């Protein structure tokens, strides 16, 4: 499906800038990811991680630069259901009156007709996705009654049901239990083997070393980007966090 001259890159963000009413949130950021790559997005709070995601999903407009998804403009990628976004826990209203099934079905909305009537294939996709995140026993549980980890898995299932080839995950490991953490890690390996491209933001340095091929350190702009082994050095991390050493930020265990 991908155009030949761009087939190397699934995400190609070139010099993108985002500002909110004149306040610059992100400037001159570049990112190139290929199929099957997992990239960690690391930076302080307010460094522009969520803004970066917002730009890649099209939720905010970029004021400068260019985003190509599989060589196509963002709008085409949205129509093709190419990008899935898994919000951070605080980003959603957990008291909203919907259950697990409803949320996962939302992953299919983009490929349904205007009335969003589920077809047999949509139902099947939702069932499969829920099975993969191990929530089959919770189909009709309101999301407000789920644990943090179960809720995170619900939104992951929505991304799976969408059958997107790019997954953007905002803090996927924050506030989840050990079981969910293990399940998400396993899913990441499966996604990688399926050729999906993953961009995830995290505060946990161990996760970055564990399964990110690439790492993008940002502080309003890209501080460093490349192979995790080369880029994820104490010096780079320190400069990303404004001169504070990572030990102070994350405790000695990281």
């Amino acid at each position: 499906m991908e155009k030949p001259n761009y087939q190397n890159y699934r995400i190609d963000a070139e010099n993108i800038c985002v500002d909110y009413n004149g306040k610059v949130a992100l400037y001159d950021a570049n990112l190139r990811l290929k199929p099957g790559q997992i990239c960690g997005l690391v930076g302080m709070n307010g460094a522009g991680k969520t803004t970066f995601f917002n730009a890649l999903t099209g939720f905010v407009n970029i004021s400068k630069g260019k985003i190509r998804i599989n060589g196509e403009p963002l709008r085409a990628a949205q129509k093709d259901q190419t990008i899935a976004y898994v919000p951070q826990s605080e980003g959603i209203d957990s008291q909203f009156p919907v259950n697990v099934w409803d949320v996962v079905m939302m992953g299919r909305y983009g490929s349904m007709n205007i009335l969003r009537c589920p077809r047999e294939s949509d139902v099947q996709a939702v069932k499969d996705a829920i099975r993969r995140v191990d929530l089959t026993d919770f189909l009709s549980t309101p999301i407000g009654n789920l644990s943090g980890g179960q809720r995170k898995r619900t939104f992951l299932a929505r991304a799976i049901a969408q059958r997107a080839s790019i997954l953007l995950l905002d803090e996927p490991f924050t506030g989840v239990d050990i079981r969910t953490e293990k399940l998400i890690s396993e899913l990441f390996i499966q996604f990688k083997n399926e050729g999906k491209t993953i961009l995830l933001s995290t505060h946990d340095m161990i996760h970055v070393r564990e399964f990110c091929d690439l790492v993008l350190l940002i502080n309003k702009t890209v501080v460093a980007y490349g192979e995790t082994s080369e880029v994820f050095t104490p010096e780079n991390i320190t400069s990303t966090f404004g001169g504070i050493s990572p030990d102070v930020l994350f405790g000695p265990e990281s």
Partner: protein
Amino acid sequence: MEPFLLSSINTFVTEPLTHDFMRKALFMSSLVAAVCGLLSSYLTLKGWALMGDAVSHSVMPGVVVAYALGLPFSLGAFIFGVGSVALIGFVKQKSRVKEDTVIGLVFTGFFALGIVLVSKIKSNIDLHSILFGSPLGISLSDVKQTVLISLLVVVLLSVFRKDLMLYCFDPRHAKTVGINVLFLHYLLLTCLSLAAVVGLQTVGIILVVAMLITPGATAYLLTDQFDNMTMISVFSAIISSVIGIYCSFWFDLETGGSIVLAQTFIFLFAFLFAPRYGIFKFKKIFSNYK
């Protein structure tokens, strides 16, 4: 004793129905309540209660100008309703004043303009009926307008039911899968303005916001399913209208006030006794509750 009780209940229910104006008032109020109740689910979930208040107050000058020019008052109300929202957005973006301040500022400004216009334009506008509603004195042309607008809002909300739900829940996901979020934003605003227009006839401008938020809030306490929430919301709104109109007939009370008070009592009931989210959690009493 019993036959007497039965017959008095019978009289209580049927006697008002012998009057033409009462049948009309019951029909109109129930219709308006259904429309506002339907919209109310979205507004309470989206957190647009203050926006509902703003739009419903801002339609005032529109109603007055339309009356003065002999235009359908819904047209004037609609223009000012949508205009107020646009103005709120503009002032918010161009100044450092916080959003709730801007909302309060704009709608009171519009409302004051409306009151001044009423006093200036000498016509047969009944300020009281605009402010407090007059479901018992609705004219035939108003009935037609209200039915048309109500149908329009119900059709729009039904067709875009799931999209609007997603828009309220997770607009970012909606955007990511290629759904036009801006369109949904204005669709909800349009429906809000239209609902405010029909609502002001029964309960008046000041209380129409209650029609737009109370049924949704009541339903929110009673269910965890969106579809159930809209149904409970519509149902409680209609019941409130009927109770309000009957009480206003038998006890000679202000109709708009009675309707809203009935809604408030139903909310209070849910607040206290809702199985899961009420103050007294009667979860265990309902043994079939999952």
